[in-house]
């Protein structure tokens, strides 16, 4: 009788696989990195050159944060909860207020000729401002822009902004531009 090698029992295969599975389950970090995406302005070529662009006062929305995390918006102290509404009002300028930004007519795909505000949001902070406050303000500003884009997308395409195809998103971005300028750092409130 020929001796056959006994078959290896495959029952423990599952156990081995389980062991590996548990190892990877434990070591896995499924963190998707999230954050506020932002573009920094390029460094000015010539240092002596005055890069202060001539922007009309009515077109600038100044947001100052001081070292004790207080807000000064358009020369008025403001609570963080109000900032979003105020920013939206600034961007849209619904009543064509002369204190709020000018508009220019731009031709945008899907929309035809639309009036787009020329406003720029200028965010300035002190060296002593806490990062938490800074992010809160950034978040409110971005939220204001996003809410307006959502509104436009709903009104025009009947869909949420995030569900639009890329070219339509681009068009909405042109109608509601996100212009947040982080000013050149100024040393105010003394060196730290």
């Amino acid at each position, binding site marked *: 009788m020929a001796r056959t090698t006994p078959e290896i029992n*495959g029952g423990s*295969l*599952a156990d081995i*696989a*389980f062991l*590996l*599975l548990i190892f*990877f*389950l434990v*070591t*896995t*970090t*499924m963190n*998707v*990195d*999230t*954050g*506020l*995406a*932002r*573009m*920094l*302005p*390029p*460094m000015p070529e010539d240092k002596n050159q005055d890069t202060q662009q001539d922007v009309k006062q009515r077109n600038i929305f100044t947001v100052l944060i001081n070292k004790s995390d207080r807000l000064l918006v358009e020369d008025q102290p403001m609570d963080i909860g109000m900032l979003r509404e105020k920013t939206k009002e600034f961007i849209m300028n619904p009543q064509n207020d002369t204190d709020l930004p000018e508009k220019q007519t731009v031709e945008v795909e899907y929309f035809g000729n639309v009036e787009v505000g020329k406003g720029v949001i200028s965010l300035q*902070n*002190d*060296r*002593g*401002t*806490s*990062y*938490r406050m*800074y*992010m*809160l303000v*950034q*978040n409110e500003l*971005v*939220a204001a822009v*996003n809410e307006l884009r959502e509104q436009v997308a709903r009104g025009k395409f009947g869909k949420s902004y995030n569900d639009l195809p890329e070219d339509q998103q681009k068009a909405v971005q042109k109608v509601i531009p996100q212009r947040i300028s*982080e000013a050149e*750092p100024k040393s105010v409130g003394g060196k*730290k």
Partner: protein
Amino acid sequence: MAKFERKGKKGMPAISTASLPDIVFMLLFFFMVSTTLRETELFVRIKLPEATEVVKLEKKSLVSYIYIGPPATQYQKVFGTDSRIQLNDSFKTLVDIRDFISSEREALSEADRAFLTTSLKIHEETRMGIVTDVKQELRKASALKISYASRRMEQKK
């Protein structure tokens, strides 16, 4: 036409567990692929601020990280409690950022270099002074695409 016949026996047949390893392997592969083992050890404490308008960072390979925060307890004897910058595996100063960015850029293929994103992981109690300095350095290094890392917070309404 074949007939469907009951084969005498009654009662539930035992469920075959032969496919159990396959299922487990499937899960195993899923976790193996989605796993990212933490490459850098953190020397600074980082508690990210919360934000509602966060976007996902695409393409992990194009992202380089800058950590800013107070040093962890065991390093506070040497480095104090003021916020410090960590690049890769050590404490660095502002002047090192440019080298760091250029080496990160070297590591990418030429086509991808323009898409280099710098993710700033900053402790929420940090003062803006150091953050502004880092941002200026990044501008000098023309690494303009940045992302302020933050945790997703549900909208309070």
